[in-house]
């Protein structure tokens, strides 16, 4: 399962860097990796969500112009946050889930913006959120609608053996 998860993450990374640029809208692409982190957090809980997030963030850090480790930290935190969401919400309808994913992506942008400010990068946070954070949140939420059934199908083929514990998330249409 771990190997398959790592391969899936790698495939999503390649999609994100090679296949998505042509479908970007005003320079903004949906964040497939963040959708995967969110889904992993919901299904696996805080600790494993954080681990998946940190691993994905590390991969992103290697091929991004971000300050070293910034995306690893932010993605790790977001993975844990997704785990918390999954633990506290028992049943999510697809549309509510899309809304939560949009807010989640916006929170990711906000956190990243703060971290960039913290390390002294010249970020105009309000402008960045308006130009990048908000469109990214909308686009990612919409793409999430398509991605969730795919992830569910993929996980159905390779089921998670260990139970996440009370509050493990289930989806309904």
């Amino acid at each position: 399962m771990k190997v398959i998860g790592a391969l899936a993450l790698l495939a999503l990374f390649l999609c994100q860097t090679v296949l998505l640029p042509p479908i970007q809208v005003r320079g903004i692409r949906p964040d497939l990796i963040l959708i995967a982190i969110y889904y992993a957090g919901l299904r696996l809980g805080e600790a494993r969500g954080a681990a998946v997030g940190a691993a994905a963030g590390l991969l992103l850090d290697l091929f991004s112009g971000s300050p070293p480790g910034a995306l690893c930290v932010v993605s790790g935190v977001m993975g844990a946050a997704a785990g918390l969401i999954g633990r506290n919400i028992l049943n999510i309808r697809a549309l509510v889930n899309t809304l939560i994913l949009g807010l989640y992506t916006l929170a990711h942008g906000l956190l990243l913006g703060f971290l960039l400010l913290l390390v002294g990068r010249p970020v105009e946070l309000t402008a960045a959120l308006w130009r990048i954070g908000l469109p990214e949140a909308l686009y990612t939420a919409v793409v999430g609608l398509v991605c969730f059934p795919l992830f569910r199908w993929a996980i159905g083929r390779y089921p998670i053996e260990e139970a996440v514990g009370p509050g493990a998330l289930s989806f309904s249409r």
Partner: protein
Amino acid sequence: MWRFYTLHRRFFIGTLLLLFLLLFLSLRLQQQPLALLDRPLSLVIGTIQSAVTSGTRSVSDAWDRYIAVTRLDDENRSLRAELDQLREERRAAAEIAAENERLRTVLAFRNQVPFHAQTCRVIGRDPSNWFETLVIDRGDRDGLRVNMGVITPEGVVGRIIKTMPRMSLVLLVTDRDSAIAAQIQRSRDQGIVEGKEGPGAKFKYLPQMADVRVGDVVVTSGLAGVFPKGLMLGTVTAVRRNETELLQEVDLVPQVNFNRLEEVLVVTSLGDIS
């Protein structure tokens, strides 16, 4: 009577058959009563024969048509497959021609500039929307180093910020962390071109008395030693002067379309021109 008949049945039947035979053999009887039956009988039989023949012909025609259609269908499929293949070949040929044209332009540019440059392919973009970088297919094994300038025949792309053995990360001019020494081509006023939140870039540190107008071309000044002097950076789109400020705010749109980049040149050595 019945008993008599049953006793001599064979005789009666034989006699009857003989009588019928005689009747049919009689030329007169053959001509007269059969001639009466001939017309209606031939009409009925003819109609039935005609209908049967026509039906058989229809079935035969339909069968022939079916066979022909089946053959046509097979032929159609094979022709469609051939057409698809030809279309794919034409698309590939067009792609190769376009690539050839781009490489010719890059090569011609590389041959005419007075510095050393290496041609690289763009193989990826930044995975995050928050940073503007791209990945090229050459790294430190090919002699690329951090801070080397990346250009195209259209103008400046950015500079290398990270190298790996077989690939490098290029920070685009439009990223908020990018800073390139530049000057206005017309007035020779100098400053720094930096990325900004939003599309385009800004020309910073231009004093109030600097002569800059919308439409002015901004080129590299060659001061930082990363880029040769005079490479196109962009065109001024807005100039904001505030009397209370020391410096002007100038926006510019880069000359290069970063979304369409496929091949770039890395300036590996400026030689003695900078």
